[in-house]
């Protein structure tokens, strides 16, 4: 049995995306997820330090550990596309240990069928965001 490549709570989401009829439906779903960010970062908190570089839109991420030592990623973006991807990432990493975050691979985006619809620079924006989260986790270990 292969090792899990993403946390359990993404299984359903990934299936939902994989079941989409076309790219348009996937974007629609992503835009819906953008509305459901569990741990939002208000625009007032956006600054140069928490900015994700290499993104066309404004995307910001702040990572911390909660009282139980569990990873917590708060994020906000002006574009729904980015916000949607950050929502799913937050669903994945929130509650993990820092080590688990560091070991996570960004393959769930592929499994969702998103990497094919994203142009290289958007895929790259996603990876920059993912990396920012992992670097934060690394620093918390």
């Amino acid at each position: 049995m292969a090792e899990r490549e993403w946390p359990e709570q993404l299984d359903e989401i990934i299936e939902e995306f994989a079941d989409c009829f076309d790219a348009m439906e996937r974007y629609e779903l992503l835009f819906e997820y953008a509305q459901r960010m569990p741990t939002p970062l208000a625009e007032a908190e956006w600054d140069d330090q928490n900015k994700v570089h290499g993104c066309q839109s404004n995307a910001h991420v702040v990572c911390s550990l909660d009282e139980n030592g569990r990873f917590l990623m708060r994020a906000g973006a002006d574009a729904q596309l980015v916000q949607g991807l950050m929502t799913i990432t937050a669903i994945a990493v929130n509650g993990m240990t820092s080590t688990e975050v560091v070991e996570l691979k960004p393959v769930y985006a592929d499994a969702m069928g998103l990497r094919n619809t994203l142009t290289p620079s958007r895929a790259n924006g996603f990876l920059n965001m993912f990396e920012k989260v992992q670097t934060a986790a690394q620093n918390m270990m």
Partner: protein
Amino acid sequence: MALDIEAIRADFPILKRVLPNGKQLVYFDNAATSQKPKCVIDAMSHFYEEYNSNAHRANHTLADEATAALESARARISSYFGTGPANLIYTSGATEAINLVAYGWGRYNLERDDVIVITEMEHHADIVPWQELSKTHGVEVRFVPIDTKTFTLDMEAFEVALDGAKLVCVVHTSNVLGVRNPIERIIEMSHAVGAKVLIDAAQGAPHERIFFDSSGADFVAISSHKMAGPTGIGCLLVKTDVMAEMGPFMTGGSMIRRVTTEGTTFQEGHAMFETGTPRIAEAIGWGAAVEWLAQFDMREVHAHINDLASWTSNQLLDIPGIKIYGDPSHKDSSGAISFLHDGIQSQDLAMLLDEGGFAVRTGHHCAQPLMDALGVPATNRASFWIYNTLDEVQAFIEYLRFICERFA
């Protein structure tokens, strides 16, 4: 209309491009860069495959052929712009052309507190060099505001700003708004107060014939890549007597008369400003582009683009939530349509349009002061050129309606 758009399209290999998602490319990013006809691409390949050589000081056949091609390109390009070869200085593009005015004329002719008038509508290329000159030489930079209702230059404010001006720098046609400024009046008014005038025609040249000598402008900056030519080349057109006021900018080979360890004397005229190995292939490509363009009446080209833009902007205004910045159906407009949807963020909209095969640009378009004046951080911009069709804009509107209904 006399233009045979289908025949024109056949000249552009890229227009047949199918994107990775299976959609046919619809290219509406012409204000960023135009596509290139096959004859332009081939002219450059032919140079490299048949007679590539460094030009000038030609003492073998290849060098001679390269030099002849380079000079005939200069003759063709300058004549297309209504001036002589001696009035054209090759640069890497409009940006370098404007920097050349700042370094090659401004440094030698402007003093502390001299006034440079620019506008809020300028591209960064026509803003930052003047701000730099104000840091190094203490000149004053005045911004003429735009009227945010009509999206045109505030000509009353311009008149006031002219007081004491030594140099006036105005964009011929705004890359964001599509507005074609009244450059004839601007040149007249500026000359009346004794100011020199630089016209940034990066967007103007692809849309109407620039007749430099008769325009009266002192400097005109142009990029090749926006008018069917290759990247990496452009020019500054300079009046003969104004060129005589200029001093060296970049220095090195070719632009010299005699170099000794004691000092150097320079060539005169445009040769003083062209140093290093020339952009040979690029000049040849741009020459071919100008030859290709010269077969059309640019007034017909403008009318065609204007028709597309008028139709499109009228349809856009009909889509709930969309706001247009500018007046793309104005008879002088270049047809660049800047717009925003109040429910779909501009980057999201760009992505969704891209999914449909529509290439539009989205961002601040290197015109942040204009964005500030408009009170927005960015716009989506569709811009058309000679090869765009009614079918394309119809498909665009249809697709956009669908997007807006589904995602707003």
